[in-house]
């Protein structure tokens, strides 16, 4: 019985769906996330990833941006809508530490004060390969939680 559960978990882990939250990013990480998720050269679909339009379908969340004051509540609300188990990846240095925007009156970085972050992908912006690396790390974590 245990092996069956294990097998099912293994199969399920091959279907990580990705959702992207832009928490006030400068576009850089955001465009790179879109590039990673959508274009043939990086084709994350071969890893079973699918880009979804609704937070309710998501398994892996890519967060970009330094969490601006105006977007904070929306981000927290959307994050809560994502069903468990989920894994969160902070893409770029803004969500990790605030980057160049740290100490602005309108910025609430770092993100991990409000949302549990599992994987960090530093870079400004990180290249798509680095984002894939982060997603691969996230899938490993996610498999354990599934």
């Amino acid at each position: 019985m245990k092996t069956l559960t294990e097998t099912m978990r293994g199969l399920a882990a091959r279907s990580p769906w990705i959702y992207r939250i832009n928490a006030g990013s400068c576009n850089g990480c955001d465009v790179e996330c879109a590039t990673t998720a959508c274009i043939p050269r990086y084709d994350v679909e071969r890893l079973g990833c699918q880009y979804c339009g609704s937070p309710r379908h998501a398994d892996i969340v890519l967060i970009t941006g330094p969490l601006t004051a105006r977007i904070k509540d929306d981000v927290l609300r959307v994050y809560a809508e994502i069903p468990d188990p989920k894994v969160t990846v902070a893409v770029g240095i803004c969500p990790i530490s605030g980057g160049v925007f740290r100490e602005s009156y309108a910025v609430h970085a770092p993100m991990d004060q409000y949302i549990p972050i599992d994987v960090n992908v530093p870079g400004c912006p990180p290249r798509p390969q680095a984002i894939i690396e982060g997603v691969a790390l996230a899938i490993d974590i996610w498999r354990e939680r599934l």
Partner: protein
Amino acid sequence: MSNFTIPVGPLHVALEEPMYFRVDVHGETVANVDIHAGHVHRGIEYLATKRNIFQNVVLTERICSLCSNSHPQAYSMAIEKIAGIVVPERAEYLRAIADEVKRVASHLFNVAILAHLVGFESLFMHVMEIRERMQDVKESLFGNRMDIGANTIGGVRYDIDAERIGYLEQQLAWIENALIEVVALYRSNGSILGRTRGIGVLSHADALECGTVGPVARASGIRYDVRVKAPYAAYDRLEVPVHTLPDGDVWSRAMVRLAEAQTAIDLIRQCVRDLPDGPTTATTERPSIPAGEAIAKCEAPRGELIYYVRVGESPKPERVKWRVPSFMNWDALRIMLRQAKIADIAIIVNSIDPCISCTER
């Protein structure tokens, strides 16, 4: 047919960036649009007065990663004006190259997103793959795919040698061929034409009234391009054609962008051909900047970008203010969205190539 209000955004899959509209609809038709801004407001104007003049070169680059070359360029130009620094000629050409490389990538991104919004995923991927070649160029020449870090006060931070020029020309030739095919597709494809012709029209008069700039203005027949009207860098020595179209619809804006991407390739070639020898920066050390104020303008991919910088006695500027092209084009959106269909909202919004992170700073 019922009336109701739908929220578009702030976190919406069709919008690259968080923005928020409250759209009152009557059935499938838009009755009224209220724009709520500020989701990407990071207080950068405040931060710019807390960082020193040199840190600001990098800070301004992070205002937006799609126009990330134009910001430090205009900022550096303003500082150079204040300090009376003369940029070496080679650096002026290298600045133009960096500008045009970014323009190709930025325009292709916007045109690709248009295909994505129309639901034409194959075309989206096809155009993004072409853009990816330009990303490779950026990564190979500058070391980063988005924030290329080409500019510094007094010149540029990168140089190209014969080997890199060879690589650049090889990539340009490939992209040029691919673009010819893409332009033909956007001209003739039924799905694209059916969803973009006659949609989101901005008349010439409205475009003038709103003070629109960049491809949005040029697609409505306004012949204004900073590279021609107020040349900077090497543009006074280059031949820059200005592309305009009369109709002012979504399709025209896409076609103007595609034409400009093709022109940009030609401009890079002109720069490489005429590239003079010499230093790439006025000084290798950090120059001292006296007190003063200056205005500088440049043509970002989305249109005219203007910087005002005022420096006092301290190493930190007293005031840095900039206005990005999207800031002016936003207002025109309200006109374009009048009587639009719900299905077209995202397409019309995308057609001004909105740069929220630029606009809200």
